[in-house]
């Protein structure tokens, strides 16, 4: 029978050192007795390993579990943890994945309880101010279920590093002087001041943020069990809040409602000087478009933009995700590809007018993404109202139709791109159309060689378009 004496209640290092030499030596779990030294204090040196065998590497997950579970107020915790370690050493490498194993289950339960206790300490510890010669000290009292103060103190250091504070618990106390953390003996409640200047404010806040129309007492007590209430300054108000809630709600419901009248607008919005004319006026009108149902899910109308006397107009299909968010055409991935191709073809985008056949983004929501959907002929027809006005205002010599939707909108018929691309299609005496692919087609090509080939053809088309536009 081996007897390991640990230096203190949470002597994880001591347990690990002993366990790492006992397991390789084949010492069975039932042959080890674990205990904590009487009158243990934190400065004690961990017990030297009782057996001088080679240590072995312990899976990280097991060490993490042990580090947590070792804080549990359960006299068997060291033995349970050694059982796990012994079995892992004996070959059960995936033991911890077996949540249904009785020992794993038991230790996980301890760790869960420690974590919950830790969360509650971080949540429900309240500091009160004490003025000391060296400055103001914040002193808090908490009654943990487990031995969690040592492991938890660094959290408070990180958060309140610039303050002086002490946390007192029945079994131990922690003190921070602005530079070092130290631990002392346990304390009692009377060592914390009774009240604090700010607590009246905190209680007022707690009472006021409560909504009496939604009483859910069990939901509160499952998160903030009654055992914590005695140390929470705000909890004193709870019984009254519960008792009066129904009456307060009834009073609100029964109160004669204010007469129903349509709400009035407050001050009228300032009217901008000079009504916008031409394209700007059309764009403003289009922002309120309800000609088809696409407006409802989309963020905004994405109207065309660019030079109002442009010789060349580009018409795409519809705004995509990025265009919908930004409110501008061709700013997403397809727009960036278009920019690159335009540059290679020697075309200055600022001298063009760029727009879409359909001005709202059509999509199918899928989780965190919106999947592009092709507009149907009805939507294209509805939106032609705006495209026609853009064409009339800008009156470009050449209209470049990017893809089938744009071609359908302007030419009024179904168009097979590969059959009609790259040549002038007369629209009227002094206006010509020109069909090519939509840049998003290039983005969708899976094959790199095809991508390069199609991109070159697209740039060629743009050069030809520039020539036709003169």
């Amino acid at each position, binding site marked *: 029978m081996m007897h390991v004496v640990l230096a203190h209640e949470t002597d994880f290092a001591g347990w690990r050192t002993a366990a790492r030499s006992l397991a390789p030596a084949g010492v069975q779990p039932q042959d080890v007795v674990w205990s904590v030294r009487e009158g243990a204090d934190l400065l004690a040196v961990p017990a030297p390993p009782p057996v001088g065998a080679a240590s072995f590497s312990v899976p990280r997950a097991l060490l993490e579990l042990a580090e947590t579970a070792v804080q549990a107020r359960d006299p068997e915790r060291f033995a349970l943890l050694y059982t796990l370690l012994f079995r892992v050493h004996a070959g059960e490498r995936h033991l911890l*994945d*077996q*949540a*249904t194993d009785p020992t794993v*289950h038991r230790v996980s339960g301890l760790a869960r309880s420690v974590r919950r206790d830790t*969360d509650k300490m971080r*949540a429900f*510890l309240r*500091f*009160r*101010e004490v*003025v000391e010669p*060296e400055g*103001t000290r*914040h002193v808090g009292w908490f009654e943990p279920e487990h031995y969690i103060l040592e492991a938890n103190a660094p959290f408070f250091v*990180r*958060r*309140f*590093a*610039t*303050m002086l504070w002490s946390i007192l618990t029945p079994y131990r106390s922690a003190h921070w*002087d602005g*530079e070092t953390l130290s631990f002392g003996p346990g304390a009692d409640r009377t060592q914390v001041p009774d009240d*604090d*200047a*700010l*607590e009246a*404010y*905190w209680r*007022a806040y*707690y009472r006021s*943020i409560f*909504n009496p129309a*939604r*009483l*859910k*007492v069990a*939901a*509160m007590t499952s*998160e903030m069990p009654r055992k914590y209430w005695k140390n929470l300054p705000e909890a004193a108000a709870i019984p009254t*809040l*519960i008792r009066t809630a129904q009456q307060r709600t009834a009073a*609100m419901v029964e*109160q004669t*409602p*204010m007469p*129903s009248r349509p*709400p*009035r607008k*407050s*001050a009228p919005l300032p009217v901008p000087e000079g009504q916008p004319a031409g394209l700007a006026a059309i764009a403003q009108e289009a922002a309120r478009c309800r000609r088809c149902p696409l407006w*409802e899910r989309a*963020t*905004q109308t994405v109207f065309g933009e660019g030079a109002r006397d442009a010789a060349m107009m580009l018409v795409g299909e519809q705004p995509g995700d990025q265009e*919908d*968010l*930004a409110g501008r055409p061709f700013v997403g991935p397809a727009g960036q590809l278009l920019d690159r191709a335009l540059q290679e073809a020697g075309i200055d985008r600022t001298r063009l007018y760029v727009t879409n056949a359909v001005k709202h983004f059509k999509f199918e*929501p*899928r989780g*965190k993404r919106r999947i592009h959907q092709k507009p149907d002929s009805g939507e294209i027809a509805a939106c032609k109202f705006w495209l026609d006005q853009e064409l009339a205002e800008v009156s470009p010599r050449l209209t470049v139709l990017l893809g089938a939707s744009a071609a359908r909108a302007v030419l009024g018929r179904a168009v097979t791109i590969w059959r009609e691309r790259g040549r002038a299609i007369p629209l009227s005496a002094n206006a010509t159309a020109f069909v090519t692919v939509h840049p998003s087609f290039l983005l969708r090509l899976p094959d790199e060689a095809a991508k390069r080939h199609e991109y070159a053809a697209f740039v060629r088309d743009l050069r030809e378009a520039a020539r036709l536009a003169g």
Partner: protein
Amino acid sequence: MAGLQKPWPLLEQKGNRRAAMDLIAKLEILADAAKYDASCASSGTDRRNSLGAKAGVGSTEGMGICHAHTPDGRCISLLKILLTNACVYDCLYCINRRSSNVPRARFTVDEIVRLTLGFYRRNCIEGLFLSSGIIRSPDYTMEQVIEVARVLREEHGFRGYIHLKTIPEADPALLAAAGRYADRLSINIELPSEAGLARLAPEKDARGIRRTMARLRLRIDEAKADDPARRFAPAGQSTQVIVGADASSDRQILDMSTVLYGAYDLRRVYYSAFSPIPDASAALPPRPAPLLREHRLYQADWLMRFYGFSADELPTDRAGMLDLAVDPKLAWALAHRDRFPLDVNRAAREMLLRVPGLGVRSVDRIIAARRHRRLRMADLARLRLPLGKLAAFLVTPDHTPRRLLDAADLARRLAPARQGELFA
């Protein structure tokens, strides 16, 4: 000795009891006015702490902390207040609307800063959630809200969590400043339908709200891809919708959420059951919306975000409402009994996620455990799973539910009786 903190500044004004009382009265008014905003989250921002700092206070470490819970079951994580409850708008569902007779108050920037720091140092809160009625103009209001955050961050080195309510269509420069100081920004969509908003809040513009969400999303994405110096709301954006103040059905609400999550990458949509307010308008429903309806919407929202359900899969009645008696996951399973029972030792993860009584964590633990042994009912019991519910839907080597699953009264047997609490 590093970084001594001044005591609560009001103590220095001894004798000035009136000022203190006035501040308590203001706090009561401006907290009461803020409580209809459900969000109190303080999770998911970047990590920071005050180690090695000369001054300042605070830390954020991923998970936010609920420092208290009120008897309405909600958590207090942040000091949630309005800068002022005066408002030039007249939104009928809002306690702070222009035509309401509630008492009005306005904090100074300094008062909010002192309350935030004071509560924070006492470990009462994770930070501040600041909103405001609209005073003078949207931009002026936004400036005042941002100034509080700026003073906290720049003058007091506050490293805790800050959530700012964003005023729709505020100047882009103001949005940029808000995102620099805040962890989270939010704009409330308020009502599920644009028609409802037009009727109850004619001064609010649903399109303007959406455009601002879009702008925030673009900035949040940009900041993610870029260097940390160009900080912008690392905890993202969220919104809230009031349920039961207009005639929208649950299906319409869930469709709206689907669109909002997809379009603006929202962290959360909060559903707030319309709750009676003092001095209410007769245009509102006289009764509160059932809290259970709000609860069902949260469950459905969860199923869409973490369980692979799409909005149109969730069963609703002919009026488009979720069943109040049965939770939406159980309702789906009851309507799709042909997909069950599942063999717990073989079923795919996405199907296990659809089993009533199994959560995401339980499913992952089952999948880890079944790699090493065949799971039996006793193993599921050890995982602390609700066997009564699971028994109808799962097969184990020692259990098969054939009869149970076909029972006509399965819904009644499985729908828990504890709903009395939720109706309360």
